[in-house]
């Protein structure tokens, strides 16, 4: 009998610590499937962020390190310059990439580092239990915006793909979502393209995944998927923001 589905080799058998309905598990798996399909597991080096996904090295079956909060693009730069023929990717959350690590992502992108960035946007600080993120949408309630994010006092959600698109060093920027099966399949295509770009030395690629965080959103897993579709995508429209390939 032909085997049609199984665990990717790039995933370990470890059980994840993620909450029910969390998007990290799906994102981890998509990355693992892509790495398997491109046959690059033995030459991939991943960088886990500070945040819920800090334990990613327990789940991925290839070389992984962790970086200080916000610094994965700088760490990736160091690794990639030492091993230009290895595949280097960062896995970063919204606080990591768009708050504390804004300088690092902007300048790694501007240098056109030939790396892949997987950006998990769940509009909230997950690991610290639900504070406002730089990508929290207007009127969204968090533990530090109890009446909802107010642009007057809290500023506006940052659109990372659009922000980076003006930089000449960026090659490929796409926003996808993990809210439905078709979108998950689309997400995988985008992730695959971002890794293939690196293999073909095309330069800096970033894929932003709108990802559910039911616990911190105060919604059920089902409602969370609907919230991505009905609310989040209004602020963060899906699609290719830039593609120079």
């Amino acid at each position, binding site marked *: 009998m032909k085997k049609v589905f199984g665990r990717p080799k790039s995933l370990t058998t470890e059980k994840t610590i993620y909450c029910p309905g969390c998007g990290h598990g799906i994102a981890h798996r998509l990355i693992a499937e892509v790495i398997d399909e491109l046959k690059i597991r033995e030459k991939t080096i991943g960088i886990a962020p500070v945040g819920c996904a800090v334990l990613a090295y327990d789940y991925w079956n290839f070389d992984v390190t962790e970086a*200080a909060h916000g*610094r994965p693009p700088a760490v990736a730069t*160091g690794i990639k310059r*030492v091993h230009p023929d*290895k595949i280097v990717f960062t896995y970063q959350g919204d606080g990591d990439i768009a708050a504390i690590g804004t*300088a690092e992502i902007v*300048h790694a992108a501007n240098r056109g580092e030939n790396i892949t960035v997987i950006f998990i946007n769940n509009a909230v600080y997950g690991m610290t239990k639900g504070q406002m993120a730089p990508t929290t949408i207007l009127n969204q309630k968090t533990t530090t915006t109890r009446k909802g994010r107010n642009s007057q006092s809290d500023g506006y959600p940052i659109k990372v793909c659009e922000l980076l698109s003006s930089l000449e060093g960026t090659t490929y920027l796409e926003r996808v979502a993990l809210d439905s099966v078709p979108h998950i399949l689309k997400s995988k295509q985008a992730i695959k393209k971002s890794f293939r770009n690196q293999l073909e030395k095309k330069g800096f690629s970033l894929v932003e995944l709108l990802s559910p965080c039911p616990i911190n959103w105060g919604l059920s897993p089902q409602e969370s998927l609907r919230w991505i579709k009905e609310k989040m995508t209004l602020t963060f429209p899906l699609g290719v923001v830039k593609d120079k390939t």
Partner: protein
Amino acid sequence: MIKKVLISGNEAVGEAAIRAGCRYYFGYPITPQNQLTEYMSWRMREVGGTFIQSESELAAINMVFGASLAGARAMTSSSSPGISLKQEGISYLAGCELPAVIINMNRAGPGLGNITPSQSDYFQATRGGGHGDYRTIAFGPSSIQELFDLTYLAFDLADKYRNPALILGDAILAQVMEPVKLKKIKKRLPKKPWALTGCKGRKPNFIRSLYLTPGVLETHNWKLAAKYKKIEEREIRYETYYGADSNFFLVAYGSCARIAMGAVMEGRKEGMKLGLFRPISLWPFPYKALEKLAEKGKKFLVVEMNLGQMFDDVKIAIGNKAKISFYGRPGGGVPTPKEILKEVKKR
């Protein structure tokens, strides 16, 4: 005849790094170490290495973190305010047990302070510097030759102990030019089976400093402590001048030790039995050697370009065994040999 080249401290550090096999330098401009960053910008490319002028000190130290975990010899340099910013990364390097060499051409503080020579970062250099329970090897050279030699050595020690090593200089050492005998370019560097290079033919490697399970971090900290103890046993460096016949010792390191040596020579001309104890490794500090020197009847004057930081270590070493006093100039004040001698006579 031994061939020497006339170079500044900043250039000596850069050339020492290149010759020690460092091919990755990441830096951000700050005075008084800019010539080092500039030197590396062309010299690294000449030897096929990588130079990146980073967007910040944070980025620079994290690029060092990346290059180091990938198995390469890497360095960054800065001066006091920039070193404060790098402390986050230095703590992670220590936690992950990654080798790296960090240069601090100490300027005066606190805050932005100014760019004059100072030794105000002694505490930061010798007590870990960032958050967490850790140590970094710290050397305080007092000549350009020593700056070259210790930078060269720092790469070996960093690799040997998988620990960051720091060179503490200042504006004098950074800018002054002296003849230096260069060492050969290292061809063979230590193998690093722990590095992240892609898991071909082996199990995946992980580099991390996070240990969430209770007790596991404590075990990791004890492992680090054992390593620090080993460094304390093996890597202490110091020099004693006129140790045999002196009854009064100056204790000074770095460029301040050069000035103190001037005072010793002047004092000896006047018939004083004056000597100098010069710590070269600031961590590990030569406590035992200093304690041994503190026999009955001897006096010690600690001279620093700060408000008294190494003074604490001298007190730990000597305790009540001898009379210890301090003379220092903070905020970029540089004492003269005459000034120091005057202080000796007061005591």
